[in-house]
């Protein structure tokens, strides 16, 4: 069935394709080495589950459904066509069913291609990034010539096979029955398929190599966790593409400018200069440029900086709130937050450049160990209860209540700490606090990129925990919770860390907390980024709210995985808003439209940001913002 000249053409096309893909692999290898996490079996199973399930891709229905069509519309026919090259006899019924499957797949692929071309062109104005469709026209031509060939074949050799090839049958009604035209069409189809294959690595279809590999090499930990780096010698963080790991460069290659990260990024939606998509595309372009410069044969020395006027500006990097919405939305597992953190680390550790308004905060952390600069002796001012147990009286089985910098010093968050202590004493749980020995957990320093300061604070905290024999830590701040749970273990401190909402949920279910007084209000819950997306805790806060008598719960429109950030994370609480609108005002406006009587959250940053935002709105009814612990304390018997 296939002549030898055709075999030569096929080999040439495959060689061009292989050469292009090898070029891509060489580009990734410019990055630093890094080990893959997890076992091979888990990674392979994860990849298969992802591809066969298509769940992540289907999160955006507009592109997910056509992708599903095209994907299955190709995999199945390819398998069948390859099998069909081997001559063996098949019972006619099976052949008919296979032919029907082929036709349906081809039809789906055709519909999917048309849908994707349409959607991608219409998305050009709304979202940035390169929305090229050139290769898709080629794909469309391949499919059309395929169906036309089939139609002519059926016109020439009419088989009354409506069941076997429905689309072909319809096409055959309008095609002339000419064997010459049939031959021409088949040749054209064959040629177009070869060109399509050969151009895979140079077009949008390169994602069939990079995307599955990126999913195979995905990060195992929770999204809230950052990579710990050694601070022995330069480079610290990433100044250039070769400072990123090959996994990061691979994921930048897998990016297709689908724009989901941008559509969900709170900084972008508030009009700030940051676009996660642009960051990743810039990394890809630099990777490509550097590779080409080095291998152009002209032996040019290049020094392409990632952070430059032409590439990524510093304002973009500092606009990020590290809310992980981009990471959550990305279908090819690109970790934008890790790359931005690496660039921040370079800026702070290697150059000492950062927004000048946050310098007092960093200096306070260095000198006093807390972000407000009040000093350790003022850490116990928040508690009016003189019975509060200090760490010196710690006994095995006690729970350490980690108050945090905001809980100890901020006038609004002190009330949350007091409410929590009230609940603990009502529930009869033995808690103690670190008192004056508490230092900042290090989250603001780490998110801003100051690894050295974070590791200093963390090691002091870990030493104190170990000296006192602490086992269980409860905190109401998701940033402290995330750091203790996910990042302290890498520095040698493994403790059992529980967030206050999970703890309260357990106590309510055990009956140790009785909520007697009803709150007959409609309440909504704003998911904190580090509790929700960062650590996957969505249900316990809602369960706690549902157990308050007479409380009606209303879910916000953007909640759970797609919750909108309050704008306080990533060190942005201590930075000015240089451009665009304020993220907390955007979120507060959104919440006020829901018409609820009470807004609750589980993070001190969110509470501060939302309260500020709601106070600034011009509406008649300004819902109060309460923490979950405060809601429970109000209803407590």
């Amino acid at each position, binding site marked *: 069935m296939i002549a030898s000249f055709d075999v030569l053409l096929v080999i040439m096309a495959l060689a061009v394709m292989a050469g292009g893909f090898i070029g891509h692999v060489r580009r990734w290898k410019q990055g630093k080495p890094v080990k893959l996490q997890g076992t091979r079996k888990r990674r392979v199973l994860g990849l298969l589950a992802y591809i066969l399930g298509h769940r992540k891709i289907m999160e955006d229905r507009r592109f997910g459904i056509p992708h599903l069509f095209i994907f299955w519309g190709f995999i199945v026919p390819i398998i069948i066509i390859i099998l069909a090259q081997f001559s063996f006899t098949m019972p006619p019924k099976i052949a008919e069913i296979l032919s029907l499957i082929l036709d349906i797949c081809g039809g789906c692929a055709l519909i999917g291609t048309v849908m994707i071309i349409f959607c991608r062109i219409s998305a050009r104005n709304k979202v940035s990034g390169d929305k090229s469709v050139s290769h898709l026209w080629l794909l469309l031509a391949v499919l059309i010539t395929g169906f036309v060939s089939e139609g002519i074949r059926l016109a020439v050799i009419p088989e009354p096979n409506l069941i076997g090839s429905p689309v072909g049958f319809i096409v055959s009604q309008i095609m002339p029955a000419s064997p010459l035209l049939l031959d021409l069409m088949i040749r054209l189809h064959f040629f177009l398929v070869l060109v399509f294959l050969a151009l895979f690595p140079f077009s949008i279809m390169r994602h069939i190599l990079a995307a599955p590999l990126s999913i195979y090499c995905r990060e195992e930990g929770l999204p809230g966790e950052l990579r710990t780096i050694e*601070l022995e010698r*330069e480079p*610290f963080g990433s100044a250039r593409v070769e400072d990123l790991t090959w996994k990061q460069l691979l994921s930048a290659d897998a990016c297709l400018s689908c724009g989901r990260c941008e559509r969900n990024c709170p900084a972008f939606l508030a009009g700030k200069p940051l676009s996660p998509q642009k960051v990743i595309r810039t990394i890809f372009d630099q990777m490509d440029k550097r590779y080409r410069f080095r291998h152009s044969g002209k032996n040019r020395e290049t020094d392409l900086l990632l952070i430059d006027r032409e590439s990524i500006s510093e304002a973009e990097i500092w606009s990020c709130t590290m809310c992980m919405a981009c990471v959550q939305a990305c279908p090819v597992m690109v970790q934008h937050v890790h790359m931005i953190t690496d660039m921040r680390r370079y800026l*702070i*550790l*290697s*150059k*000492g*450049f*950062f927004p*000048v308004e946050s*310098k007092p905060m*960093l200096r306070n952390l*260095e*000198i*006093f160990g807390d972000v407000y600069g009040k*000093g*350790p*002796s*003022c850490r116990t001012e928040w508690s*009016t209860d*003189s019975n509060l147990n200090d760490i010196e009286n710690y006994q095995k089985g006690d729970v350490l209540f980690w108050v945090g910098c905001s809980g100890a010093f901020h006038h609004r968050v002190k009330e949350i700490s007091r409410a929590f202590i009230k609940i603990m004493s009502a529930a009869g749980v033995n808690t103690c606090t670190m008192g*004056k020995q508490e230092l900042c957990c290090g989250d603001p320093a780490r998110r801003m990129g100051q690894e*050295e300061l974070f590791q200093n604070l963390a090691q002091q905290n870990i030493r104190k925990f170990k000296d006192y024999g602490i086992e269980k830590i409860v905190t109401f701040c998701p940033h402290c919770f995330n750091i203790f749970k996910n990042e302290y273990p890498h520095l040698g401190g493994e403790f059992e860390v529980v967030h206050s909402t999970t703890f309260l949920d357990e106590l309510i279910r055990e009956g140790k907390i009785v909520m*007697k*007084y*009803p*709150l007959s209000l409609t309440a909504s819950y704003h998911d904190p980024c580090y509790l929700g997306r960062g650590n996957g805790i969505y249900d316990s806060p809602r369960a706690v709210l549902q157990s308050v008598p007479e409380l009606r719960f209303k879910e916000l429109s953007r909640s759970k995985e797609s919750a909108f950030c309050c704008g306080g994370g990533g060190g942005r609480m201590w930075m000015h808003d240089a451009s665009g609108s304020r993220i907390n005002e955007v979120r507060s406006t959104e919440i006020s439209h829901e018409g609820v009587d009470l807004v609750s959250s589980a993070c001190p940053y969110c509470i501060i940001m939302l309260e500020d935002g709601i106070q600034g709105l011009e509406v008649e009814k300004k819902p109060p913002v309460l923490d979950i612990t405060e809601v429970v*304390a*109000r*209803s*407590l018997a």
Partner: protein
Amino acid sequence: MRIVVCVKQIKHVYARTGLDPEQYFIAPEDKICRVNPCDEIAVEEAVRIREKTRNGEVFLITLGPITAERDLRRCLSIGGDRLYHIDVPDDNQLDSWAKAKILAGAIKSLQCELVLCGKESLDRRNGMVGAYLGHFLDFPFVSSVVQCEMMNKGRVIRAHRAIGRGDREVIECPLPAVLTVETGLNDPRYPTLIRKLWSMQQPIRQIDNFDLYGNDGEIKVKTKVGDVSLPRPRPRPVSTPDSNLSAMERIKMLRGGGSSARTKKSERSEEKIIEGTVDKQTESFVSFLKKHQLL
């Protein structure tokens, strides 16, 4: 061109005061030691001058026991080359004259062209060491510098002084000179991690060619501190709660804005500020009234 910067280590002065009447309640509970912020600005200025003249060295010199080593090394990492230390055993007894005499002896041995200090330190706020240094070294002295430039190929310095209410005095003086800098001169740079790691490896060089004691065995000082006391706060009218109550309850009342009846000591433990939902408050209030047989 060699620049020497005098750097002072101070204790955190805005900490909660201590509990010891012998120390006049001023011993701070926080044992936080840091470098005087004006001296940090002086280091930054020295580094900038060195960058402008393109060659030169910046030496840091500190007097007294090393209490803030980490912050001192951080100052070094801003741009200093060497760190010198004069180990005086007990600098609480020394006054500005004695300190400046010792420093001047050390600086003479270092042979520099410019000496920079902070205008005043946050703990004592004397501001005299710079002036005495100028006298002992026989250098011209300019204080409260908020801007300075090198002129005439590095032989003359032009300094702008802040003399209050935004006025400026421009003074030119030949090098070598002593300058005292004020906040507002510059914003010290944030040192890079490489510089910090380098500064951790640097040795602290000792200078010990000083003599503290006079012929009679006493420390040579011109003045002695007799007494330190905090000023009495200005009185402010405030509604005083019932003095029968304990301090904790009085504080709670002031915070909560309520008033409580005069009760017997045995029942005092039941007093509290009622918080919570309206239902809860009502129930607690009604039970309170019933218990005290007011209903």
